[in-house]
């Protein structure tokens, strides 16, 4: 709004020259910012600026690929990184472009909105004197009086905005149609702003997280960030205010084609809503069949099934007869065969001496094949759990669990192996039920394999807003591209005896859209009872050339 103020304020007299200069500068800057040419340049910049987001690895999508890029191109990667090329859509220069574009859009569209509102109330433009100058025009003498001729034109132009004027013996009708074109155009552009606002709201107040849950009764509750394996918080989300709900995964079933291509994933889950939890109904679970493309939608949160995998179960019988069972998810390393790798870690029970404990921790690491190839080198030939086998190393020593550093649940700390604090004590291929005995009498049994699923929980308060504005945008776009703004004029002059009327008609398309010619031809055929060409060429190139 400041714009119009600046633009319409009368030049201040007696003020300092510097202030005038500043005003002029502001005014010129604003004018050029809101010009179509600037919008065009900003659109190009936006397209060019978005491209590296597709061509370079992005942190938001895949950190591993970014790291790989740093390894492959050590010289240029840090430079690109400093310029924000690995986070293009969070980069300040990207934001600058689209914000400038939005400002330019507002500056262009708001005045046009007022102008259009004014236009809607204004009468159609008066009839031009010389019809022959119009791109479409025709003349004929009708065998009816001027009143009947006017009535015929009025009847044909029923849905047009019309204005009739008398001038001497003749009368003119000017008409205009297609106001919805500009309305659609404005709707489209204003919806873009709404879309951006909704998008921004999602980035501020939305969050998403991933969590792996064992598929035989494993539970997850959305009560805090700590429950997640990874979490992406919106800028205004600190994780203290999540909508609480709980999930329990009862079963998971995957089916595959004979060639190993997955056919369906289905998880039977139960859930408890916020209301259930508040009311204390903690024993009841509402069932839901969770599948890909069929998320669970709960009070503004959504739960997705995004991956699955296997968790081998091992039982360790220590020399003193105590047993420990470990069941930890292993990570699929081959997306087709679901060959998985991981590390299941054990603390020896009943050892209080810190030093001794740190030499007798156990880890079982290696590969799990859901359908084993058999033979000495185990690999997987099919993703379903048909014929599982593990190929594992048993490591003993200090796992580094007390170092205070977080470590991957899928791996052991390689530095402990390198330093000799963690030593391999056995290597074996096991099928369920088989066991190995270590040198100290510890027995490790591979019991069986369980399944896990990875869930994505998403919360985006802006997405409904975005959808509404996206639909409005589409409606506006459709209107503005399909409707033609066009004008039509007629002058009716009675012949001397008053029984016949000379009717001149003319038409002009106000928009850059050829094709008024056809409609004008129909009008002419109907109004003047003639159908041959008479100065008005079908689909005339003149229409495309200069109006709009």
């Amino acid at each position, binding site marked *: 709004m400041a714009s119009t103020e600046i633009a319409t304020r009368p030049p201040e007299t007696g003020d300092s020259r510097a202030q005038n200069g500043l005003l002029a500068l502001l005014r010129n800057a604003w004018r050029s910012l809101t010009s*179509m*040419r600037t*919008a*065009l340049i900003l*659109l*190009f910049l*936006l*397209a060019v600026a*978005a*491209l590296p*987001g*597709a*061509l370079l690895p*992005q942190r*938001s*999508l*895949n950190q591993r*690929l970014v790291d790989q890029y740093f390894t492959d191109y050590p010289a240029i990667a840090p430079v690109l990184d400093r310029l924000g090329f690995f986070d*293009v*859509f969070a980069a300040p220069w990207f934001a600058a472009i689209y914000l400038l574009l939005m400002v330019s859009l507002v500056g262009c569209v708001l005045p046009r909105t007022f102008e259009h509102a004014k236009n809607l109330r204004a009468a159609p433009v008066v009839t031009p004197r010389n019809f022959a100058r119009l791109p479409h025009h025709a003349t004929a003498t009708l065998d009816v009086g001027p009143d009947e001729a006017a009535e015929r034109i009025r009847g044909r132009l029923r849905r047009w905005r019309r204005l009739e004027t008398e001038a001497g013996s003749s009368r003119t009708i000017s008409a205009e149609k297609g106001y919805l074109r500009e309305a659609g155009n404005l709707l489209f552009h204003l919806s873009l702003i709404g879309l951006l606002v909704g*998008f921004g709201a999602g980035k501020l107040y939305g969050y*998403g997280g991933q969590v792996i849950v064992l598929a035989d009764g494993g539970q997850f509750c959305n009560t805090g960030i700590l429950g997640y394996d990874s979490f992406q918080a919106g800028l205004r989300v600190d994780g203290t205010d999540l909508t609480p709900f709980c999930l329990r995964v009862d079963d998971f079933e995957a089916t595959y*084609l004979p*060639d190993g*291509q*997955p*056919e*369906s*994933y289905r998880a039977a889950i139960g859930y408890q809503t916020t209301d259930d939890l508040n009311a204390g109904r903690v024993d009841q679970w509402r069932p839901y069949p969770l*599948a*890909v*493309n*069929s*998320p669970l939608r709960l009070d503004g949160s*959504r739960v*997705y099934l*995004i991956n699955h995998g296997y968790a081998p179960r091992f039982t360790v019988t220590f020399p003193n007869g105590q047993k420990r069972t470990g069941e930890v998810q292993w990570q699929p390393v081959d997306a087709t065969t679901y060959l998985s790798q991981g590390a299941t870690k054990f603390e020896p029970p009943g050892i209080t001496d810190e030093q001794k404990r740190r030499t007798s921790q156990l880890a079982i690491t290696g590969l799990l094949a859901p359908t084993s190839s058999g033979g000495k080198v185990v690999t997987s030939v099919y993703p379903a759990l048909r014929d599982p086998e593990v190929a594992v190393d048993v490591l003993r020593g200090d796992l580094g669990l007390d170092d205070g550093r977080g470590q991957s649940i899928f791996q052991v700390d390689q530095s402990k192996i390198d330093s000799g604090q963690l030593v391999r004590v056995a290597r074996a291929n096991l099928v369920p039920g088989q066991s190995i005995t270590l040198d100290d009498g510890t027995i490790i049994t591979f019991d069986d394999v369980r399944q896990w699923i990875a869930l*994505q929980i*998403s919360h*985006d308060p802006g*997405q409904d807003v*975005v*959808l509404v504005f*996206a*639909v409005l*945008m*589409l409606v506006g*776009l*459709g209107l503005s*591209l*399909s409707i033609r703004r066009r004008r039509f004029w007629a002058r009716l002059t009675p012949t001397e005896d008053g029984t016949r009327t000379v009717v001149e008609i003319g038409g002009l398309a106000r928009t*850059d*859209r*050829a*094709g008024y010619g056809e409609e004008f031809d129909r009008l002419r055929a109907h109004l003047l009872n003639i159908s041959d060409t008479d100065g008005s060429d079908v*689909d005339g*190139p003149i229409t*495309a*050339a200069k109006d*709009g």
Partner: protein
Amino acid sequence: MLTELALYSDRLFMGAVGVFVFAMVLHGAEYAVHRSAKAVLVGAGGPALDEHESHPEGTPVRSRSERLGRMGVALVVLGAVLLAASIVTRGLAAQRWPLGNMYEFTSAICLAAVVAWLVVLRRSPASRPVGLFVLLPVIILLFLGGTVLYAPAAPVMPALQSYWLVVHVTAVTIASGLLMVPGVASLLFLLRRSGRLTGVADRLPSADVLDRLAYRLTIIAFPLYTFAIIAGAIWAEAAWGRFWGWDPKETVAFVAWVIYAAYLHARATAGWRSGPAAWVNVAGFAAVIFNLFFINMVVAGLHSYAGLG
């Protein structure tokens, strides 16, 4: 039964490619005959369609060019029918909507382009010489589709089992196919204006007609493309947990959308209306093609199912 259907589908596809190649040869011959005739028979009588070749001296050579062109168009229609039949039998063989991998996608885009072209031709028969240049990208794409991108008829992975596949991918396919014709028309417009290759360019419709052809198809295809992106966002929300995540495919779709938006703005900006706008249109189609092939085949992302490993 289903494998037989799949086999028929493949044969129909090959048949369509063969017919399109033959149609292109005829369109090419149309140019050649016209050019060789021009020197001899400038201003020869109007085309006489039923004339026989039994009296070679009297036959206006222009009519032979005309006949070749018409035969070419007839073959394009035949090719479109074969390609449509190939797509339908593919869907029956796989027992799903036949837009599940890059091969099927490419095939359908080409069908959309050819059908759009035939509709244009029906409304303005004078633009027939453009046909040669519409067929060129179609044949290249079909060839790539039938060789590099080919995947046997099979069910699709769980992420693609959704009715949004029908909505989103069909809309993208039709929009991409429709945008191919304006891309070609804008290139020819630029060629016509540049004054080069006059032997070919003189046969083309006037620059004005080409420009209008490009604009008219673009303003039909652009809202459809917008709809396709919105439908894709709705599907992404249901399948991946977010409606927009700047996945490479999404990013380039956004880039292409912005370029077409720039085209529409350029059409309304003084000094940009004709030449520069045509370049923008060509850039837009380049972005669409880039998104279709490069992103799926080279850059990894959520959209790289495609049956290419």
